[in-house]
């Protein structure tokens, strides 16, 4: 499949208030193309809650509910139950949340919905920060990254949401990236027809939050995958398959690129390079990724 083969129909229409180069809008276009108009969306506090509909514009062409920060998956559970009791089974219920609303405040509702076998798709667009409130750290922020609440670099590593999700043993879970729209589209198509809880997480490099030029969003996404900082994979009934570049890295057919190639272009890691290169912390990031791949290989190869 190529980009030209994606449906022409757009549910993400002009009127968005997003920053230039916003990855969330790129992801939303693909999500809507794959899921179609017969979709209901539950959005907690996050950038999307702002950019989708600043009066007098709206960029969504489907029913949407902006709910409290902690409540995306719980709200979606209710919507799904409402449809089910009316016998409406053809509508796709989607919860769409950022990493703050997924990793931190929303994890309780998410875990509950997955455990209850709620028939919905939960999509997390992960830009590794609280960008909507002005770039604070989240549970997804990588080690060493600057945010307004980790001014000299975060001292903890991000949590592995993918593995937390897998522990729920749901029918479908996947990791994707905005730089690989065809892969994302395929995963959404697959998720759409499965019954039960489905989880898709999309790596979404944020230009103002990560401090890189707005035209580099896709490049940053590509590099996230090529350096192995982010893996593309899907889990179908506990069977893990790595996709695209990540598959090649997994099988040892290509070397993952050094992490430096990715982080040196991001202002949020500038303090690791200037005034003096912080070899220790850069190596810590590298080692952490190595450990992650080592774990992947042990478990899934």
């Amino acid at each position: 499949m190529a980009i030209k083969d994606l449906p022409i129909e757009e549910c993400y229409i002009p009127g968005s208030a997003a920053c230039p180069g916003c990855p969330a809008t790129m992801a939303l276009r693909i999500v809507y193309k794959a899921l179609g108009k017969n979709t209901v969306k539950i959005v907690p506090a996050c950038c999307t809650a702002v950019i989708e509909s600043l009066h007098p514009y709206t960029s969504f062409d489907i029913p949407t509910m902006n709910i409290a920060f902690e409540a995306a998956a719980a709200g979606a559970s209710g919507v799904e139950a409402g449809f089910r009791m009316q016998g409406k089974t053809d509508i796709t219920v989607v919860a769409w949340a950022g990493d703050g609303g997924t990793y931190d405040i929303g994890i309780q509702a998410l875990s509950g919905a997955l455990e209850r076998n709620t028939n919905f798709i939960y999509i997390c667009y992960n830009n590794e920060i609280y960008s909507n409130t002005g770039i604070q750290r989240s549970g997804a922020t990588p080690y060493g990254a600057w945010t307004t609440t980790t001014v000299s670099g975060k001292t903890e590593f991000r949590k592995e949401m993918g593995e937390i999700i897998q522990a729920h043993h749901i029918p479908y879970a996947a990791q994707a990236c905005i730089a690989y729209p065809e892969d994302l589209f395929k995963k959404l198509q697959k998720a759409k027809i499965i019954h039960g809880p489905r989880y898709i997480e999309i790596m979404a490099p944020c230009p103002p939050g990560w401090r890189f030029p707005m035209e580099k969003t896709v490049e940053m996404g590509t590099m996230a995958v090529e350096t192995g900082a982010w893996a593309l994979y899907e889990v179908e009934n506990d069977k893990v398959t790595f996709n695209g570049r990540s598959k090649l890295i997994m099988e040892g057919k290509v070397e993952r690129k050094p992490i430096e190639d990715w982080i040196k272009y991001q202002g949020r890691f500038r303090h690791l390079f200037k005034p003096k290169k912080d070899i220790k912390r850069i190596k810590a990031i590298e080692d952490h990724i190595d450990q992650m791949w080592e774990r992947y290989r042990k478990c899934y190869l």
Partner: protein
Amino acid sequence: MKYKYDPKRIREVLGKKVQFLLGDMACVYGGLLAGCSFFGGYPITPASEVAEGMARRLPRVGGTYIQMEDEIGSMAAVIGAAWGGAKSMTATSGPGFSLMMENYGFAAMTETPCVIVNVQRTGPSTGQPTLGAQGDMMQVRWGTHGDFEALALAPSTVQECMDFTIEAFNLSEKYRNPACVMTDGEVGHLRERIIIPDEKDLKIIDRVTATIDKEKYIPFTNSQTRKSKVPDFATFGTGYRTYVTGLTHNEKGFPATDKQPDHERLVKRITTKITDDADKLVMVEQLNLDDADVAFVTYGATARPAESAMEMGRKNGIKVGLLRLKIVWPFPDKLVTNLAKDVDKIIVPEMNLGQMVHPVREFAENHCEVISAPKIGGEMHLPMELYKYLEGK
């Protein structure tokens, strides 16, 4: 680095004595000057700057900043830190304040000193995140379930954001009760000149810690070392047997959930420890009230346009005065009653649909007319809008 209260070092970290500062940042300064050594934060507009300011400065004075996973966690961590021996605070806005409500009640029930800065924004729900409001004035008083007393201050200026945060710590430590600084998006995001007090001008109150013989210590009763209904505080790890629970507990701290007298004794003590002192806790500003026929009763950001309206009224020969509540809860009931006896009309401007007008009515209505002057939607009153109330329009 171990935290030790060092006003000299704190002043070094804060910088110049006179600064042009953001209201939210002034709350940070106030907290640090008061000896806050723990901040549990969670990002929320328009209060994020308080967390950001603390994240930068607390480590430099030996304190700890933790960004929690949500506001429920923030409030819980703040309570935990207090029992661990820290003076602790958090900052939030409407939706986060709503999430904190359960633990706010827990802090009151367990007599935990802690400070919450609420940079109010419009509501209900998400409302207008970047715009100010005064819609949580009743929530701070009645938002958590059961009977308790609130300690709440409302700053009108950036200077007061700092001063009142210090005062909130003092009240909280003195009464072992959560104290709230009810600022708002307008004052929180306002930049003004502030003067940082000298060390000698700082009045800091710390909790009275338990010193009595460990065998004789009773954790939840009148103080055993002085005349007060506030018990001496036994920090965890100091060797005292301390059991802290949100369940109704007896004097020893153990659950007494099926005993009516125990509950009544406990809750009456934790409320009367504050209401007994209510008259001492009055903190107001009175302007032109000596000969006034009409008075504004106001607080927080709204006091600013009200003062301008008062000046316009005075210029045009209307005998108008202003009473500004600095401490909003406990409510200065006697003062308001006395004012009501002297004037014909009280006007209560608020950035909500009428909240503090209710206690004003309760204590003034028998003596004069009480008019609510509400405005919502994230815009402050214009002086002219309030002036019209003076002319009876």
